[in-house]
């Protein structure tokens, strides 16, 4: 592919962006065709971090494969685990205790906040503002500490397992989450003051990288990337799992479809996550944190599909079982893969300088795309 770089017969310039570019946040390689500063084509080359997780899972049991999925979208590790656990539970037809359900949602929403915070800091850094990165990491660190106390890990938690959660929450969990929420509420406003209202920032975001509603659906975009274009696609609302249907929160929709709309969706979503946590943190039911399951899980013959809303969009787990202890075939429908496919369409006819803003607001996580 590297011999393609240079000037084409029409006089267009073909350049590389990545795989080691700091704004791709991972090993994504884009081959960009430019006419002056205008983008004519963006061609993603994937596979630099491909581990063939789907193939690996075919030789792992239903208890083991969940650990691999934390390594897909490592910023939504809990939610990946959650999706797999739900899919296995769907096959086994087991009910999980209400305590486990509430704990699962709490850690999911904390993960969503942590993920959006990292995105916010990193995206502002892409646009040249370095301070937000430190601000975001300061608060994200608190969430990591809470996770570490309860699950023993800071990034790849593997905490949600078929039947419930791995261990009960730490005695400090409720106290620390509450003090975090208290702190974080004032911080979100600080973020708005620092970045959202900034004239330069808005100038670089508004009207840049516009994705229409029809295109968002056609390209299979989900999550904040699609909700910025006005597509109702929050799985928590459409196909509620656990006890999301009993909770009060809003699906955030923006209609402009540009980078700024996608940005605003995530900022407003963080506030909704706080709302969800506030409803649950004092109401964690007593009881078991895990249902009684067999040591070796065997799914009946059949097909099972489960989708959840990760921080990036709709994650789907499709298990085909032949009745054994390992899946016959497993497919992960990762949100990033579909969102990336729209990048060429969004970036075309835009300026090369805007590409970073567009990519930043799509919130690409490369291990999630490559799997």
């Amino acid at each position, binding site marked *: *592919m590297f011999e393609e770089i240079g000037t084409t017969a029409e006089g267009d310039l073909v350049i590389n962006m990545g795989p080691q570019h700091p704004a791709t946040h991972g090993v994504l390689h884009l081959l960009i065709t430019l006419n002056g500063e205008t983008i004519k084509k963006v061609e993603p*080359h*994937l*596979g630099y971090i*491909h581990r*063939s997780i*789907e*193939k*690996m899972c075919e*030789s*792992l049991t239903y208890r*083991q494969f969940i650990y691999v999925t934390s390594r897909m979208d490592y910023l939504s590790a809990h939610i990946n685990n959650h999706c797999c656990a739900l899919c296995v539970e769907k096959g086994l037809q087991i009910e999980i205790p209400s305590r486990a359900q509430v704990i699962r949602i709490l850690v999911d929403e904390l993960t969503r906040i942590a993920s959006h915070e990292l995105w916010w800091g990193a995206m502002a850094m892409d646009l040249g503002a370095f301070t937000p990165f430190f601000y975001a990491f300061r608060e994200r660190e608190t969430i990591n500490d809470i996770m570490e106390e309860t699950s023993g890990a800071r990034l790849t938690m593997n905490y949600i397992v078929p039947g419930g959660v791995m261990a009960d929450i730490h005695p400090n969990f409720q106290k620390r989450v509450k003090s975090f929420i208290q702190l974080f509420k004032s911080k979100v406003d600080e973020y708005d003051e620092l970045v959202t209202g900034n004239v330069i920032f808005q100038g670089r975001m508004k009207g840049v990288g516009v994705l229409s509603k029809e*295109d968002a*659906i*056609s*390209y*299979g975009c*989900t999550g904040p990337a699609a909700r910025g274009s006005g*597509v*109702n*696609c929050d799985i928590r609302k*459409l196909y509620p799992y656990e006890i999301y249907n009993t909770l009060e929160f809003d699906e955030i929709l923006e209609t402009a479809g540009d980078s700024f709309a996608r940005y605003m969706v995530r900022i407003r979503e963080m506030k909704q996550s706080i709302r969800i946590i506030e409803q649950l943190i004092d109401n964690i039911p007593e009881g078991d944190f895990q249902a009684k399951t067999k040591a070796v899980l065997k799914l009946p013959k*059949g*097909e*099972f*599909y489960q*989708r959840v809303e990760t921080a990036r969009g*709709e994650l*789907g787990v*499709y298990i*085909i079982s032949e009745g054994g202890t390992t899946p*016959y*075939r497993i*497919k992960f*429908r990762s949100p990033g*893969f*579909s969102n*990336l*496919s*729209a990048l060429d*369409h969004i970036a075309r006819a835009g300026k090369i300088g805007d590409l970073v803003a567009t990519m930043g607001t799509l919130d690409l996580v490369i291990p999630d795309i*490559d799997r």
Partner: protein
Amino acid sequence: MLNEELKITIAEWLSSATFDESGEWLNINIEPQDWPILAKKLRNDENHVFDFLFCLTCVDWKTHLTMVYHLTSTKYRHNIVIKSKLNRDNPEIETVSDIWRTAEFHEREVYEMFGVNFINHPDLRLLILPDGWEGKNPMRKDFEDPINMIKL
């Protein structure tokens, strides 16, 4: 929309289609040559509008390959699964990337991992595997890689 209504409409469009309701959603088994016409109808019919292809994948059953398309409608919220058996030695099916743009990337992934040839695909090249990859398709069941394969 209820599965019964969906079944009646699809049977009208395509008499050779067979149905399977054992799973969560209605499964429709079709022949690969019928897929492009049915896909257009599913996408464009006003009473169905299956506009969101949320999962496209392939399964190697050792004797044959099966293409699996998960479709939903953002308007009516009904889901269906389309399945089509392909010959394992020379798997071919028409592309749907002109109907659902998301299929372009997903079909490229299936092309390299399973070796399915998507007819009329605009850009059928390797996506994830390195350039110059030769040999078998990694996601097929008979793929062996003595160096990198993880076996437990």
